[in-house]
């Protein structure tokens, strides 16, 4: 069975042929070419080269100058809008050291609503009790017990 399946690890004959034919192609560079390259390199070595750092500085200076010119042109055409002072922030105010004691302020802000709530609750409860007493006018009222003729200790016998 394994004879019928291609072995993936087996070298591809076409690729082997490609490699072999590539190795067979081996042109010699002309003798003058090497001399030309070496002389060009020597010329490049002798000619003054601007160093990359100097070029970088020149480029940076040019960019800065261009940016400054653009900024001046833009600002001249469009006047600067007036700057509004920022609104006071309550949180900043609470943390401001000029305020005597921020803790008492905070306690005040916290306690006040609680006191109001307690007062409101008491008012509501008293109102509810009066309402309940008014809903049941007679029946609910406790009737005074009539005094019995017989005293508890005596019997009819």
């Amino acid at each position, binding site marked *: 069975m394994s004879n019928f399946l291609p072995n993936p690890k087996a070298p*591809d004959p*076409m*690729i082997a*042929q*490609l*490699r072999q*034919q*590539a190795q*067979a*192609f*081996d*042109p*010699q*560079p*002309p003798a003058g*070419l*090497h001399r*030309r*390259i*070496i002389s*060009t*390199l*020597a010329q*490049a*070595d002798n000619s003054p*080269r601007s160093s*990359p750092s100097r070029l970088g500085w020149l480029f940076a200076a040019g960019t800065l100058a261009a940016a400054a010119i653009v900024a001046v042109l833009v600002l001249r055409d469009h006047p600067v809008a007036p700057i509004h002072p920022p609104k006071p922030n309550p949180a900043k105010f609470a943390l401001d050291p000029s305020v005597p004691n921020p803790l008492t302020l905070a306690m005040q802000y916290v306690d006040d609503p609680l006191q109001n709530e307690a007062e409101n609750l008491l008012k509501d409860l008293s109102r509810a009790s009066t309402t309940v007493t008014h809903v049941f006018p007679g029946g609910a009222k406790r009737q005074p017990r009539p005094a019995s003729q017989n005293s508890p200790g005596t019997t009819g016998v």
Partner: protein
Amino acid sequence: MTSDLASSSSLELLSDEQLVSRAKAGGRDAFNCLVLRHERRLYRFLCKNTANAADVEDAMQQAMLKAYLKLAQYNSRWRFTTWLFTIAVRELRSLRHRPGPATTALQHAREPAAPNVEPATDPNAPDDLWQIAQRVLNPQHYAALWLRYGEDLPARDIAKVLGRPRIWVSVTLHRACALLRQTTKQSASESGNSRSRGKSRPNQEQTAPGVT
């Protein structure tokens, strides 16, 4: 004189990376040694990918000069040959955009330029796979195929040289091999048919007079 010879022989023993670091430090002899070591390989690559012999020489000279001038930008993460091939491919592209009669470049290369040397294999032979590849493949695909099987570069380095993603290289190589295989099969079957026709034709000619 003897000291020069001794220094050149000692340079030959150094690796590419060591030579590059020496050349970066200002040693032009080290760079000359790199030129001597790689010029043949680069020339072979350019011959395979350029139509014109003059363009091969120009591209090679410019590539070596740029490699020397921009040696500070060389990243040792890559092999020196990979960097050199990358510069050479860019040079070929710029030669293509040069004003004047368009003669060359990776995109237009159809015939290899091997000016001084007779090819070892007959270009018209049906079994010359590189000739078939040059005929049927896109020039960039052909360059990828050459870098893989002619120069033994890994896919990562081919991607760097051609400025393409690595997956493109893998897919391109796979497709190029498939196309090449299909073309060679077709040409083999056609040649087989022509041979059988050639064999059968004399018989027909022999029988034809008898029939009439």
